[in-house]
């Protein structure tokens, strides 16, 4: 199942930016999952440029 906003930035050098995380696990388990994703992200963003939202960034795949 794709989230309404999930297509955002799929095609950028940073790759997919929308991560759906199942938070049913314990706080610690979820936190370690998030930290692992963040570690990978931090190595990639350092040399990239922060962008701003433009028209079309929120385009829906289908109507809600």
């Amino acid at each position, binding site marked *: 199942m794709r989230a309404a906003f999930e297509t955002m930035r799929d095609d950028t050098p940073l790759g997919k930016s929308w991560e759906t*995380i199942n*938070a*049913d696990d314990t706080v610690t388990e979820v936190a370690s999952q998030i930290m692992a994703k963040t570690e990978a992200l931090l190595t990639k963003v*350092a040399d990239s440029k922060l962008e701003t939202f433009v028209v079309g960034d929120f385009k829906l795949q289908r109507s809600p």
Partner: protein
Amino acid sequence: MSTSTCVSSSAASAASSAPKRGALIVFEGLDRSGKSTQAAKLVDVLNESGRKASLQRFPDRSTVIGGLCDAYLQQATQLDDRCIHLLFSANRFEAVASILERINRGETVVVDRYSFSGIAYSVFKGLDWDWCCAPEVGLPKPDSVYFLTVSDQVRLTQTIQNSSDMRYLSKLSYSHILCRIFFSTPCPVRPP
């Protein structure tokens, strides 16, 4: 060596000595999914590991516009749906300078709720999708969005364990509609 090469070399040198930028990370999700807990935890872990990080919550109730948002959320004032949507968006723009300043000096900014919540909640109230998205143009685009999902069973258990939070019981059914907006598809779990 050509002039342009010299300029390029000195520019490269300056760039290599400049601090690497931090990341903009956003936590989104339905009520009671653990956004605030996980956002705060991530900031703590990053700081403990020697990487600067700070938390940014929205709405930021410390500003004038944030105060209006707070009054609306506390039901101390009534506002038109479009008006409050724009105020929430303006509240995010108020924080842009601070967010960019932190990111440019190498700090990772972790945001608890951002444009996506603002859009989803207003669409839930019946406003047009495109209209709700338009005011967000120009805001910094997050490097990553962590969208937390939690089953109704877990959310209900949390609510029952905290009897002072019974108001959230009534939110369970409306969260299904919000879920449909976030996922743009019928929610897989039936309302209680």
